[in-house]
């Protein structure tokens, strides 16, 4: 087996040092009636690199890659161009094959990057402090809800109906066990988000208000208005963002009254990957609450010679020290995805991110205008960034399936997202990777199908 360096001679010599007759003898503590004397039957034996690659390539070939289609899916995962530099750098063995930086003297590379990443995220979100990342946007959303409960010592959470349904479902699942009360609502298909309806549901027992920006239908809620209402009731405003490119064009949530800002960072540097691994972003506006924050944190310090350096810090919040009193049971961040995010963000910089956002918005406006001309199609949104909702005269889910056969991945139907979703609803995302030709292809196909 090509990954196992020991030779038979090595094994014999090592066994003699140990004083054991065989490798099997080292497993003498396993009850003998349960010990497996040979390879498990019914499973294949080892295979060459060539053979394995062939098998996997065949499986990969059974998928329609986004780049091989006219592609319009979003709903929490977005197709953006990732510069070749990003993937080259994250594959350097010193990054790829490093562990969590618990030995800071030989992990300054990872640590300095986490410090840079935390600063990039904090600035993007308009916050004071960001952590070193979490599993993904949905788990970060739950962690924000749990933090709000710790800080406010209240247990009722008001969820916007236009929060990504998977995120809402994760929150509901976890809350069942922590006995937090989740006040949800169904999503209303209106041109503007129902901010007033959300505000009306906030009361004195409310620990947090969770609102997505832009929301699952692509609309843009009035965060400041919601923040003021939440704060008037002693509640924290949690803002969820699933498309960080949008923040190159939209005001940062931290500047609009948000207390905790969380989101999915996949758009920057990570790629679609069928849903994971992704990158949870987590930031807060009040630095005094940092000890209530979940997740790893990297901080600046100096070494014994006075040189600047970085370490993981405030680790007493974490489970390996606090055990049952930890702020969260999570002990992994999404390190390599955070690195990819940070590299891509460094390549973009202020100029690149704002330019990228402008290009996304430009193409989305063109697409919305073109699709609105298709008979039987209405654009729901009064406002949007790079994703909007269509109402089609027909079963959107079936349309998506039928168009897939023509290499058009038309979007995500609301019926797929919400079990009780409106059958007419189709969520369409447009990024810098979408061409005018793609837009025309989709419009023409819809015209044909709805005629």
């Amino acid at each position, binding site marked *: 087996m090509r*990954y196992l360096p*020991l030779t038979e001679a090595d094994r014999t*010599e*090592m066994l003699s040092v140990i004083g054991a007759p065989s*490798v099997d003898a*080292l*497993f003498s*503590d396993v009850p003998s009636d349960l*010990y*497996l004397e040979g390879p*498990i039957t019914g499973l294949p034996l*080892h295979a060459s690199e060539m053979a*394995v690659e062939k098998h*996997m390539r065949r*499986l990969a070939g*059974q*998928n*329609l890659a986004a780049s091989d289609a006219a592609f319009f899916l979003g709903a929490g995962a977005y*197709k953006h161009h990732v510069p070749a530099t990003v993937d*080259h750098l994250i*594959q350097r*063995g010193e990054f790829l094959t*490093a*562990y969590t930086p618990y*030995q800071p*003297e*030989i*992990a300054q590379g990872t640590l300095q990057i986490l410090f*840079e990443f935390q600063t990039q995220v904090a600035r*993007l979100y308009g916050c004071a402090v960001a952590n070193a990342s979490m599993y993904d*946007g949905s*788990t970060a959303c739950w962690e924000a809800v749990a933090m709000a409960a710790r800080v406010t010592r209240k247990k009722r959470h008001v969820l916007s109906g236009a929060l*990504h349904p998977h995120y809402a479902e*994760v929150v509901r*699942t976890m809350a069942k066990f922590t006995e937090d009360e989740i006040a949800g609502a169904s999503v209303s298909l209106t041109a503007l988000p129902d901010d007033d309806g959300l505000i009306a549901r906030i009361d004195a027992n409310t620990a947090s208000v969770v609102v997505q920006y832009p929301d699952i239908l692509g609309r843009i809620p009035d965060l400041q208005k919601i923040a003021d209402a939440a704060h008037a009731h002693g509640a924290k405003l949690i803002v969820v963002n699933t498309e960080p490119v949008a923040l*190159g064009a939209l*005001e*940062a949530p931290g500047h609009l009254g948000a207390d905790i800002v969380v989101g999915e960072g996949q758009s920057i540097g990570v790629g*679609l*990957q*069928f849903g*994971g691994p992704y990158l949870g972003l987590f930031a807060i506006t009040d630095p005094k609450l*940092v000890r209530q924050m979940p997740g790893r944190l*990297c901080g*600046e310090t100096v*070494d*014994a010679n006075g*040189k600047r350096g970085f*370490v993981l810090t405030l680790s007493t919040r974490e*489970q390996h020290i606090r055990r*049952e009193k930890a702020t969260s049971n999570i002990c*992994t961040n999404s390190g390599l995805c955070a*690195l990819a995010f940070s590299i891509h963000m*460094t*390549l973009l*910089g202020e*100029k690149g991110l704002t330019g990228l956002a*402008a290009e996304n918005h430009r193409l989305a406006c063109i697409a*919305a205008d073109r699709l609105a001309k298709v008979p039987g199609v209405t654009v729901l949104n009064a406002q949007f960034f790079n994703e909007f909702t269509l109402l089609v005269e027909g079963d959107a889910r079936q349309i998506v399936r039928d168009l897939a056969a023509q290499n058009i991945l038309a979007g995500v139907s609301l019926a*797929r997202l919400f079990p009780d979703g409106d059958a007419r609803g189709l969520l369409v995302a447009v990024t810098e990777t979408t061409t005018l030709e793609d837009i025309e292809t989709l419009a023409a196909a819809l015209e044909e199908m709805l005629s």
Partner: protein
Amino acid sequence: MNKPINQSGWKPGTPVASDGSAHPTVTGNKALMLEEPLIFESGGADICGVDLPETPTDLPSRLGAFARKDAIGLPGLSEPQTVRHYTRLSRQNYGIDLGFFPLGSCTMKHNPRLNEKVARMPGFADVHPMQPTDTVQGALGVMNELAHWLITLTGMHGVAMSPKAGAHGELCGILCIRAALEARGDARKVVLVPESAHGTNPATAAFAGYSTEDIPATAEGRVDLEALKARLGPDVAAVMITNPNTCGLFERDLKEISDAVHAAGGFVYCDGANFNAIMGRVKPGDLGVDAMHINLHKTFSTPHGGGGPGSGPVVLSEALSPFGPLPFTAKTADGYVHLVEEENAQEYDHVQAFGRMTAFHGQMGMFTRALTYILSHGADGLRQAAGDAVLNANYILRQLESDLDAPFAASGPCMHEALFSDAGFAEGFSTLDLAKGLIDEGFHPMTVYFPLVVHGAMLVEPTETEAKSGIDQFIMAMRSLAERAKAGDAALKSAPHHAPRARLDEAQAARNPRLTWSAPDET
């Protein structure tokens, strides 16, 4: 309140007169070791490393009143500067690719590059999680094929694939147990955790609403079977056990423990962090385990990436499988792989699912890597890998037991890790000093101060992918360092001397947290 942390103000790029070394340089660089400033010090708002189309400025906006008004404050670098920045930083990191990484409990084994190549095939890397299932049969096929391997290797009944990492999987397992108990109207409140458990175990149980109680270990480093049996009762929901345990030993009474727990109406959760030692040698299902997470980033060699992403599928017994979270895959007789989510759970008889742990379907990028690794090894190779990992650890244990205190050396063969303590070191010398000495010798330190049951613990996990020559060199270094620690060599106390940084002031970092960069005049 913000006190300056960096009293000297030195940063890369500033001249230095002396850096404490025998041959200081004016840049602070040391030949191949180059100091690198932060992007906030070297980058600029107008510098950009990507080319964008010229977007006209007089575009219609559909952003309403919410367009950004102020600059974000994100520095950019050109592409060549970017490549240099990250390449220089990478060289301040230790990785498996560079050398021996015997970090106990973390299973730092070789990461095959075929796995990386496969994960980047467009059919896996460039597919959206919400595409129609007709267009992602290969991706769902990977999930299904990996699930089959995990179930078969562990002798279990089902598997929840979506948990994002080990601790997330652990939580998933405990939530399955709570859901199963609630379904039968049984409100048990206590989870028993051996004192040698991973720190995540009590944190997880507490999150799931359970109080935890410690179960002591015997003098030979295993769970005290009698103490555990004595504590079992109608209030005990589960026992969380790690096998092989954190002392590096196989819990030989696990079957008896499981039988007793089941007889008392509870469930057995096994922390699968150490499954690497026993894959293909014994099936946890045969030992009576009800739920066990598998760290794909340990056992099946998906890269650790400097702290993640991980992946923690949870295998489940027949009793717990109906409660596993959504989504999961189901292959029908026609060969089609279905994705079972909230909307169609009923069709697949899975209405008791306790909910959803994450958006989308789990760590697909880790599934492709793990399946590639598993297919490369096959059933025979995985069994051999476990054998070599255990052989390497026992070799280290026996080679060093006369140089270092090995508290459980008399407890029989160890599994895939060897445990030592700091007993016998000179006054004022500890495990940390030996660990930092290893850095100077070119090795990544072992896990230190864990497990807590041993004073000054040193947990060495060589894994199966280390050649004997490398292990022998490590043994030589450990002997030398043990001697220096016993003799009280002052130079060891200030190690490392050859790393990019000397020991860092962690107290200062925590007292006065500086977690984001701000310009010097802002602080």
